[in-house]
């Protein structure tokens, strides 16, 4: 029953020069027997597939393994896999393989994705590799026959999967593209821990972004310290806002008294860092870059009705001029 599992010797010889698949091959039969002993009771078709696969695809395996070697270099650690058999996955496999043809001349990319990773996952080998996405994982126990259609079927099946997968992988599925994430050493690759890990990585990525944002966070390592720094920074910003609003509240009555002294130029200059033009009459805005929508030359404030500080009026006018208008109205006390 398990004869089909034994890989032909020619294959093993071709791997002599490759470090990675050597170890693989040593464990292969081992694991495949394990895998199939779990699953063979359920589906005799699997064995057929295996035999089929094992017998004819010399160059296929060779090429995929060469790619495999190029992909990963210098890994040497074991990783564990849960082999909880999932029946719907196997049924899926059968339906998948029944409609696939073997075509070694097919696109290497597809074969690469499917075969290499399925083999990598299904073998408990000593290598540090990353985790595949859930769609890949579903098929990891089967040695798939590579074909273009297979990836399509993968997509369809994956898209009909649980919401957890689709919510994470929807956009990727539609693009017929897999995001290959590899499990690190000594980490489980079942669905939940994968999701957990992806979520954690997302959070850490955002924490790094925050770390760049907050000044003085670069020296701190460790999420807790960075989080503390962020919290302190937000609190200090809030305190600053409160402090400045207190100052403004104090300054406000003074503002009303000092209306005539201020010119609108100066007021606007607070915000835009333009050189302050002290003029008695705010008639000519020299500094202001006038956009074609505005009047050229002087912005005569007498023309502008100070009551028109509604938001509608503001929308029509350029931002900077509206700022001027507003500040003038604010100053004049309306």
């Amino acid at each position, binding site marked *: 029953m398990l004869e089909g599992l034994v890989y032909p010797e020619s294959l093993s010889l071709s791997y002599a020069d490759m470090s990675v698949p050597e170890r693989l091959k040593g464990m292969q039969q081992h694991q495949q027997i394990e895998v199939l002993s779990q699953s063979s009771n359920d589906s005799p078709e699997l064995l057929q597939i295996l035999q089929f696969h094992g017998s004819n695809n010399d160059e296929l395996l060779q090429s995929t393994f060469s790619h495999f070697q190029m992909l990963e270099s210098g890994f040497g650690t074991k990783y564990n896999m849960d082999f909880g058999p999932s029946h719907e996955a196997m049924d899926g496999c059968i339906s998948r393989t029944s409609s696939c043809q073997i075509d070694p001349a097919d696109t290497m990319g597809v074969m690469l994705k499917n075969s290499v990773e399925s083999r990598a996952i299904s073998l408990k080998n000593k290598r540090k590799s990353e985790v595949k*996405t859930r769609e890949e994982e579903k098929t990891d126990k089967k040695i798939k026959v590579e074909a273009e259609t297979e990836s399509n079927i993968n997509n369809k099946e994956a898209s009909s999967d649980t*919401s957890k997968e689709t*919510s*994470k*992988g929807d956009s*990727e599925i539609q693009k017929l593209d897999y*995001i290959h*994430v590899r499990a690190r050493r000594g980490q489980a690759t079942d669905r939940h821990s994968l999701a957990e*890990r992806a*979520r954690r*990585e*997302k*959070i850490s*990525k*955002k*924490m790094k*972004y*925050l770390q760049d*944002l*907050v000044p003085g966070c670069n020296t701190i390592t460790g999420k807790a310290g960075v*989080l503390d720094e*962020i*919290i302190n*920074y*937000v609190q200090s*910003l*809030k305190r*600053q*806002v*409160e402090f*400045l*609003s207190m100052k*403004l*509240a*104090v*300054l*406000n*009555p003074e*503002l*009303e008294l*000092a209306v005539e*002294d*201020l010119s609108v130029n*100066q*007021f606007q*200059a*607070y*915000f*835009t860092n333009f050189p302050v033009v002290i003029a008695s009459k705010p008639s000519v805005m020299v500094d202001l870059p006038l956009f074609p929508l505005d009047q050229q030359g002087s912005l005569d404030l007498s023309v502008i009705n100070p009551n028109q*500080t509604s*938001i509608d009026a*503001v929308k029509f006018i350029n*931002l900077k001029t*509206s*700022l001027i208008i*507003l500040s003038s*109205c*604010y100053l004049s*006390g*309306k």
Partner: protein
Amino acid sequence: MASADKPINTDVPEKDVFALHFLQSLSNLRRQNAFNSPDDTTNNRVKKIKKAAYVSMARAAGGTNRLWSRALLRRAAKENNKVVIFSRRKKRVTWLRRSNRRDPVDAERLRNLLPGGGAMETSKLMEETAHYIKCLSMQVKVMQCLVDGLSAK
């Protein structure tokens, strides 16, 4: 998914936008005659200005696309006994699916700081915090400019 995520978008508009909104809110306060010193104590004035600052910041930078700005505006409206209506967001389905999925007890202090932080997922919390920090710093700059300009007279 660890890879192929959309890049984190925390763009904040220019200082002018903040200044504009802040001045608008201040002039609104003026119009309401809230600054007659015999009527109001300084504390009330301070509170009003502070609230105006936050609300204008939320409106200027966050708009309705940011969770914290929505929460802030909603809170402010509730204090005034008004109701804020937000337009429907496009990504509602995703939002529903993801709500409260993971333990929202992490980073508790941060959640307390950020408006609307209690309901967000942790990753969303980080994004919102980044945007909030940027907006706050911009608002602080605007207010500082105003205070400097006014106090120089």
